[in-house]
């Protein structure tokens, strides 16, 4: 990531490097299941943060709590200093104008054309209208590399990569202050994944936007983010341990001593595979041969 751009955005901001998004002891529970517990993260204006972690660690829940799609069990989410869970409907709607959300599977409205999908936030907030709106839609689609002839098509007629780019165009249409990406490269081929990465970088260059990216894709996280936050599933934590295992610049990922972070970054199953192979009855193995071979390898390694 080009550090000068970050500095430029941060220094040009009238409010300086003050946090635009803050979570304070955020806890999310569903019944007896705890997904997030006391997660506190502060994201300065203009920064791009990648939130990584294994499936089920609560990354998407964190993202949805930030945008107010999910009401936390306890704790606070502040956007520009305001607790979003204390806002009334009208203020919340006004605040959402400042958010852009790129969903995992784009979440385009099936019943609408691409033009209507990208136009939706403009209509919702009443700005701008007519030819000006049309020009804006064409420009946003062009920014994500889509020609204007896709506009009359329905989302089902586009490929996965194109749908994601339409989702990005829709999120950008109101020039939001905060852009949230939920697994933007998941399910795409390596070339399309890199195109999406480049688009995220270009978006960052064009607009003074703060970005939060939830991803499993380490290549994407390293390429796009200024900072990486790694969450760990609450159920796997030791007592008193923080759910945030890592919170630093991407370069520090290779220097970390935490085994779990290393394991995730290098994509190694380690003891997790053995845990999965052992059934409820202790010692009763589903596939003993595989288990034995892993144990032998580990013994050999020692």
């Amino acid at each position, binding site marked *: 990531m080009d550090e000068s751009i970050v500095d430029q955005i941060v220094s040009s901001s009238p409010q300086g490097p003050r946090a635009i998004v803050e979570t304070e002891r955020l806890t999310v529970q569903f019944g007896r299941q705890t997904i997030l517990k006391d997660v506190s993260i502060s994201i300065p204006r203009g920064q791009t943060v990648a939130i990584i972690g294994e499936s089920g660690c609560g990354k998407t829940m964190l993202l*949805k709590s930030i*945008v*107010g*799609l999910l009401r936390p069990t306890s704790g606070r989410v502040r956007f520009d200093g305001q607790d979003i869970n204390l806002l009334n*409907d009208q203020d919340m*709607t*006004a605040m*959402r*104008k400042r*958010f852009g*959300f790129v*969903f*995992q*599977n784009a*979440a*385009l*409205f*099936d*019943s609408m054309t691409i033009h209507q999908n990208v136009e*939706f*936030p403009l209509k*919702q*907030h009443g700005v701008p209208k007519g030819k000006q709106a049309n020009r804006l839609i064409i420009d946003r689609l062009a920014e994500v590399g889509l020609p204007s002839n896709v506009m009359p098509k329905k989302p089902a007629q586009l490929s996965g990569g194109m749908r994601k780019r339409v989702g990005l165009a*829709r999120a950008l249409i109101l020039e939001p202050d905060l852009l949230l990406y939920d697994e933007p490269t998941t399910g795409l081929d390596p070339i399309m994944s890199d195109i999406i990465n480049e688009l995220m970088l270009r978006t960052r260059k064009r607009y003074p936007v703060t970005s939060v990216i939830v991803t499993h894709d380490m290549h994407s996280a390293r390429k796009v983010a200024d900072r990486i936050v790694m969450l760990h599933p609450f159920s796997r934590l030791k007592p008193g341990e923080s759910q945030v295992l890592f919170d630093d610049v991407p370069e520090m990922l290779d220097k970390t001593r935490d085994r779990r972070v290393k394991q995730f970054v290098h994509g190694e199953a380690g003891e997790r595979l053995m845990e999965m192979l052992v059934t409820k009855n202790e010692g009763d193995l589903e596939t003993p041969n595989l288990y034995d071979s892993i144990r032998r390898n580990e013994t050999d390694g020692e």
Partner: protein
Amino acid sequence: MATDPYLHNDTLKSRMMTGLGRVTNAWGGVAVQGILTLGDISLFTFQMLRWMVTARPKRETLLPNFYSVGVLSLPVVALTGTFIGMVLAIQSFHQFKSIGMETRLGAVINMSLVRELGPVLAATMLAGRVGSAMAAVIGTMRVTEQIDALISMGANPIHYLVVPRFLACVLLIPALTVMADFMGIVGGYFYSVIVLGIDHAQYLRNSRDFVGTFDLFSGVFKSFFFGAVIAIVSCYRGFHCQPGADGVGRAATAAFVQSFVMILALDIVLNLFLDAIYFAIWPSGAKLF
């Protein structure tokens, strides 16, 4: 080996108590879940009514729903209405003929249609054709995060998705009911007069003498409530859809089944209410319920 009778009794008692506990627990769970669902539906309805009066729905959300509920349901409602009118004629003819009252067939067919079969049939067709589709569409939007997308862009999903569907159902079901009534009357007339050869003038006179404005009103009045129930139950099921294709399928099925049960239950209550009103206005009339 001798067994201790006290120990045996204790075990039996303990087993019975455990069994009773399990049954109580299971039924208690069902009751609690039922109360929670009822509370949830009431809140959902309240939110919908609040949005209906506080913000005007947009034209582009209203028109497609009005078209789907009103225009696209018309052929199937008209067709089934015609068939029901004819079936009533077939079923009643021989019994009425055996007592020499076949000319009264018009009164029976038309009264049954306008008071009961027309509104219930129109509502059933609407629940099957539109209600399950509503649940499936909203359910799919729920599982594919389209509802989250709506919220994230500042739109309220109840205002955007539920209010137009509710208005379409409530405002257009009376028209569908009138259509079902009309086509049923035409079907009954066709079969009775053209096929069975009942005297045309007597058939019409008896129909006119026995079927009054209040009968027609009661059918149309009930249909408003049926439309409201279909929209609320179907949208609620869609909003609470479980993930996956199975979840969407279940939501669509539940929307139809629950709407249908609610329509019939509501029909009893509304008939009792309308009957009470009828006898308050015309005390000399014969009591039906």
